[in-house]
């Protein structure tokens, strides 16, 4: 009998939203407890700061340039490798419950397997996999619409709840800019759904149900994938008493004085200011009709309050899953990895949502690994400061399961402390952005190493290929001083860029076309 593996991902969660990472707004005792008993990574970056490429990295252990999902809307190839398949072949029972998003959501032709698992012609007899090595798959996203098991469940059992959620897309099929709540912040909405019907609870419930069917002596790998705290920020309104938005402190990255804020933005490549002023939206998931410069401090507070409530609900739902696992007698043999696919600007620089902006709000992720207490490999709990990436998750899962890391994986098992990281060459982590959407083309390549983040821009809609960003993470943790053009840092910049280009991943297949906006 081997180790059981629970991979927990959230969607669009910042590093600083967990208590163990210094967050003060959300109470996250469950994840904090895992961190206290395991490894807490202080510099974990995604390889893309949007969902589909990042999630494809988690399942393949490859960079976006290699697995081919170079932007949202580009489907992961049906024959792409999958760590779930590796574990299934090794005898593990496998399940993915919650948000997948390896293929486009907007799929009226029902072309993609992920959306065909539920057969709309067979009402009431929803399929549940297999999908990409997961023998069992139950899907959920951010509301009650779409080809998801959760949406089907709501429609079948609680149809009155369909209209309770925020409408993610507007009539023009653009990401909705409509505001709500007390402050009118975009993608904020008072959702009167009872907590027990909310997708966070459903994902936990379905996970517990799947685990209940596993024999005690079987090995299993479950990817528990919560859709929150991704926008829309519409947690059950009955839970909003947890955090009074009026008392929420403004985030450190939010510059209150507009003149000072715009001074910082002006020092970054021009698409920063263009988005802020409403002149350019380079990511479909940011509402086209919303101008960040209009955002008020109170709106930032309310978004952060709702985000915090969603994070707390996730923590409590995870606690229920862990209790069920404990009750099955698997607690000592359980490895838990907790992370997310990318971050959220959440007020930093006067911005919300995400896009081609390689700063900590989007790149610094929560990542916790609590090894099985029974594991011989366990060393003392630690915090790891060396850079790691989501590309390292799949190899880590293989290592936990005791199977060889396939050659096609480009990461390596996570280090257990900084000395281990140094020994095994965890020196750098790379992040990519490519997007070409409705005439707007943006390409970024970033490296984080030795306490620096360096991003170079290739020629595109707003850039001529000479622009970049360079930040000293120790002296400028909020990335407000761009040293890219500072002559005294030219040598460092050159060294970082050389290292960046020396380690660029290679494509494994022809460049695929975008099939949908998301």
């Amino acid at each position, binding site marked *: 009998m081997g180790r059981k593996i629970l991979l927990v991902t959230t969607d669009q969660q910042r590093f600083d939203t967990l208590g163990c990472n210094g967050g003060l707004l959300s109470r996250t005792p469950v994840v904090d407890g895992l961190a206290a008993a395991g490894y807490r990574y202080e510099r974990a970056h995604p390889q893309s700061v949007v969902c589909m490429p990042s999630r494809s990295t988690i399942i393949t252990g490859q960079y976006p340039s290699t697995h081919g999902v170079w932007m949202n*809307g580009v489907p992961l190839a049906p024959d792409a490798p999958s760590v779930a398949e590796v574990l299934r072949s090794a005898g593990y029972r496998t399940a993915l419950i919650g948000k997948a998003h390896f293929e*486009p959501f*907007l*799929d*009226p*032709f*029902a*072309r993609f397997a992920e959306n*065909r698992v539920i057969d*709309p*012609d067979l009402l009431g007899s929803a399929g549940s996999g297999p999908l990409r090595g997961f023998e069992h798959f139950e899907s959920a996203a951010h509301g009650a619409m779409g*080809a998801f098991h959760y949406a089907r469940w709501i429609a079948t059992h609680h149809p009155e709840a369909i209209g309770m959620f925020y409408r993610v*897309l507007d009539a*023009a*099929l*653009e990401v909705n800019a409509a505001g709500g709540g007390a402050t009118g912040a975009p993608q904020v909405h008072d959702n009167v759904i009872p907590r027990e019907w909310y997708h966070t609870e459903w994902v936990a419930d379905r996970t517990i149900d799947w685990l209940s069917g596993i024999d005690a002596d079987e090995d299993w790998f479950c990817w528990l994938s919560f859709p929150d705290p991704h926008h829309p920020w519409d947690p059950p309104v009955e839970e909003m008493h947890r955090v009074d938005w009026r008392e929420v402190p403004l985030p450190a990255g939010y510059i209150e004085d507009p003149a000072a804020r715009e001074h910082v933005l002006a020092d970054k490549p021009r698409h920063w200011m263009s988005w802020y002023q409403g002149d350019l939206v380079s990511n*479909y998931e940011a509402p*086209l009709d919303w101008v960040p410069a209009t955002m008020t401090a109170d709106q930032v507070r309310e978004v952060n309050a709702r985000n915090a409530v969603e994070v707390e609900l996730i923590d409590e739902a995870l606690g229920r899953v862990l209790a069920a696992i404990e009750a099955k007698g698997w607690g000592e043999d359980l490895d838990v990895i907790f992370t997310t696919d990318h971050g959220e600007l959440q007020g930093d620089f006067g911005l919300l949502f995400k896009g081609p902006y390689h700063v900590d709000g989007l790149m610094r992720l929560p990542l916790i690994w609590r090894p099985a207490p029974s594991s011989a490999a366990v060393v003392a709990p630690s915090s790891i400061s060396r850079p790691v990436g989501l590309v390292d998750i799949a190899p880590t899962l293989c290592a936990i399961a005791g199977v060889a890391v396939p050659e096609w994986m480009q990461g390596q098992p996570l280090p257990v402390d900084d000395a281990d990281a140094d020994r095994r060459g965890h020196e750098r982590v790379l992040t990519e952005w490519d997007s070409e*959407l*409705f005439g707007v083309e943006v390409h970024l390549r970033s490296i984080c190493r030795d306490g620096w983040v360096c991003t170079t821009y290739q020629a595109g809609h707003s850039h001529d290929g000479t622009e970049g960003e360079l930040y000293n993470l120790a002296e400028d943790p909020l990335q407000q001083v761009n040293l890219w053009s500072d002559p005294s840092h030219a040598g460092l910049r050159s060294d970082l860029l050389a290292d960046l280009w020396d380690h660029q991943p290679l494509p494994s297949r022809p460049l695929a*076309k*975008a*099939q*949908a*906006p998301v």
Partner: protein
Amino acid sequence: MALGSIRHHRILNHRADRVWEIAGDPARLHEWFPGITHCVVEGASRKITLGNGLVMPEEIVVHDDLQMRFQYRITAPLFTFHRGTIDVIALDESSCIAIYTTEADPRAMALVVAGASSEALVTLDEMLTNDVSLERQTH
């Protein structure tokens, strides 16, 4: 509302008239366009059935065998505007270029339809390559 306009093309190592035989036949769309399970043509109207069971009405705007151009509009309420254009242009006696242009409002739907059309062009190419019987008929 915003208009999206997206064009995909593919060079096919097949004679233009062979490509047009399929691409220019509105009743055969479901054979090469992914996600369409059925289509019925009645005069200048076509109804397509999608993979999720949704039926979409279309209006055939241009069906020009000389130019090898086919244009149609999806008239379902989901679209404020739609126009799809298929052009087949001979490059030489044994190859041609097939161009599938999608214009749509909402623009998100242009991306979705165009995404499927790019795959459709690949399927069209494969159909012709694999269609030994058709090859025999034409030689």
